């Protein structure tokens, strides 16, 4: 659905609603034929596990998904996580990370989309070039970043450049200085910008050409055109993208884990809450499912709060206009 809409917007094609036809077997029947499998999947694999997690989070459930009554600990798991300095640090770090990465990815993807709207030559080619990283596995990308580009040895790719400019090799992931953020942020931008760029292009294509023409007649060009036409018209796209970006910032796992984890463990810096929860609840084949569930409940709550705040904020802004 979303892909089709994007495609339509990309080609500038308008959705055409075909005339209603008589449906054999009744609409309700076919509605359930198509919806039931997905609904069943959603219930089984999404909602039941969420509810079950909530239940497990109240038990000291180790190596079991059906805890005994004597393993009931009430909110003990929540208390131990919320008094765990490492967990709180990871939450704090990732709130800061969110505040930085969301505007950065947003600006970067919007910039790419605007640039690609302007060029006349090889537009499809460049769209594909910037979109392809989205299709790359996070694991593979993390390995390229870690082993090749930002390898801390003197012969790492970036270090070779640094040395040729007269600098000394940098230990990108060693943790001495926060340069590991350069690695992680560049990796995330590379992996994700292409996708949001496509969403922005779709949004840009929905702005009618007549708006720009009218503005041009009033003498608006360049920045003014962007400030007063493009930007406000992208409001709904922006709201959706920011929400997606916030969620994905809190769900950070793959590229962090694969960039920074070693066989000995994961360093205490740049450690997303999900990675920390993974380590303490499932690391090394352990199954501290109660603690892990409590952690995911806390994280879900944080994401919900962020989402609601953002939604309310967007509504207020729109109402003002």
């Amino acid at each position, binding site marked *: 659905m979303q892909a089709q809409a994007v495609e339509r917007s990309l080609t500038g094609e308008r959705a055409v609603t075909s005339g209603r036809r008589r449906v054999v077997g009744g609409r309700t029947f076919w509605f359930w034929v198509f919806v039931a499998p997905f609904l069943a999947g959603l219930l089984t694999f999404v909602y039941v596990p969420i509810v079950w997690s909530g239940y497990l989070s109240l038990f000291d459930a180790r190596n079991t998904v059906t805890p005994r009554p004597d393993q009931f600990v009430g909110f003990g798991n929540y208390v131990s996580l919320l008094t765990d300095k490492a967990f709180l640090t990871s939450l704090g770090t990732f709130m800061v990370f969110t505040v930085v990465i969301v505007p950065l990815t947003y600006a970067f993807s919007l910039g790419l989309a605007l640039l690609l709207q302007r060029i006349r030559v090889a537009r499809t080619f460049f769209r594909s070039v910037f979109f392809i990283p989205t299709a790359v596995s996070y694991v593979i990308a993390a390995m390229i970043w870690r*082993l090749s580009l930002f390898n801390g040895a003197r012969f790492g790719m970036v270090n070779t450049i640094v040395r040729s400019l007269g600098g000394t090799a940098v230990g990108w*992931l*060693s943790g001495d200085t926060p340069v590991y953020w350069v690695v992680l942020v560049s990796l995330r931008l590379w992996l994700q910008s292409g996708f949001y760029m496509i969403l922005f292009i779709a949004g840009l294509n929905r702005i009618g050409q007549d708006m720009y023409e009218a503005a041009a007649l009033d003498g608006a060009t360049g920045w003014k055109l962007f400030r007063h036409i493009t930007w406000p018209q992208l409001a709904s796209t922006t709201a959706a993208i920011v929400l997606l970006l916030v969620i994905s910032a809190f769900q950070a796992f793959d590229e962090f884990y694969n960039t920074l984890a*070693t066989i000995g463990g994961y360093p205490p810096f740049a450690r997303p809450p*999900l990675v920390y929860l993974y380590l303490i609840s499932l690391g090394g084949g*352990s199954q501290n499912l109660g603690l892990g569930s409590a952690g995911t409940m806390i994280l879900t709550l944080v994401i919900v709060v962020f989402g609601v705040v953002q939604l309310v904020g967007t509504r207020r802004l729109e109402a003002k206009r």
Partner: protein
Amino acid sequence: MTHHAPLGGRGISRRGLLAASTGIAATAVLSACGTNSGLSSSSSSSSVGKANLSQWYHEYGEDGVQAAVTKYAAAYPKASVSVKWTTGDYEKAVSAALLTQTVPDVFEYANGPTADMILAGEVLDLTDVLGSAKSQFNASIITPRIFRDKIWAIPQTIDMQMLYYRKSLFDKAGLQPPTTFAALVDAAAKLTTKDVGGFYAGSDSGVGVLGLLLLWAAGFNSISSDGKNVDFDDPAFYSALAAYKAFRDGTGLLRNASAEWYDAAPFINGEAAMQWTGLWALPKVKAALGDDFGVAAFPAIGSAGKPAVAAGAYGACVAAKGTDPDAAKAFVKWLWVDQEDDQVEFSTAFGTHIPAKPALAAKATPLASGAGAAAAKLVADNGHVPDIRWTTAIGTAYSSALTNIIVKGADPKTELAAVVSTAKTELAKLA
């Protein structure tokens, strides 16, 4: 979410069990890139009245292991045993399977089952299976894995980590292999040149792999004798960590190389004069450097310290909910206690490992002389295995503290206080 290895590769699968040293076992992640199909192979004879048992292995990186374990299973006369060769994240696969109704009857697990598995009643006590044969096994492998006075796994074969050093470089500089940490620091600094680093133990400066070794080499255990706290919350250990931090800040410690510590490539390429890596690297190092290398333990730190090497062994476990637990126990006894020829073959025909019974090491050609023999002796004299009570949560807290102390320069006492707090909570649950 994908939970793949940061680095996967063939031929390195057994070393993951040693990774439990700081809590995050990466056994499975290490074997993620193998080539086997993961299909189960069943032994042929399945007559009426015989028990049907399933036996799970993780994917060993070395060629021939799968064929060998299938052959052992097929040769067992009293039950029909089907081998399941599990690719991917083995530990997760086993712990998930143990929650279901179709559990593996017999399975291997890094250093034996976890304390949580035992407390949840997922595995059976194998004390009687080992019986009087216990004395034939390497005590340093068995003792730290005893939980509530019972033995829960039979060690299959021992793998270990040690210090490799270049003899020619030491001779040229007029140095002896280090037996104290001060000597290691001194040698590393003297051997460092523009192109060759002194000592290498991974791009995290050794925090990951040397975590437990530092405390063993400083003369401590991971868990105190009463089982209620860690053993190393002590000024002598604060000094040991400060010494390691100074070493890292100096010139002798190579911080980055072409590969991680578990790959001997940096040592073979001449990037470092000394490297901490595993016994598994021995065949490659020998082929590349001939006699120009030696092996040693991690040297003693401080006046109460003792040299130490890390050892580990996959242990054969029996699931409590299996189809026929008694038959499964009998099979484990037959294969891992009685069949000594198979045990020697399993240890030494596919890469170099050390049989869990020291007497068998003499029968194994690669361990008869040279560095192989030295490695076997290091395990017997200086070997340490992670304590079964050293849980993932304690390990995570400990490795975080170590990074903060060694990399970020935090105060050892404050940082270790956080480990003590985690450990006390965890250990109270295991008491």
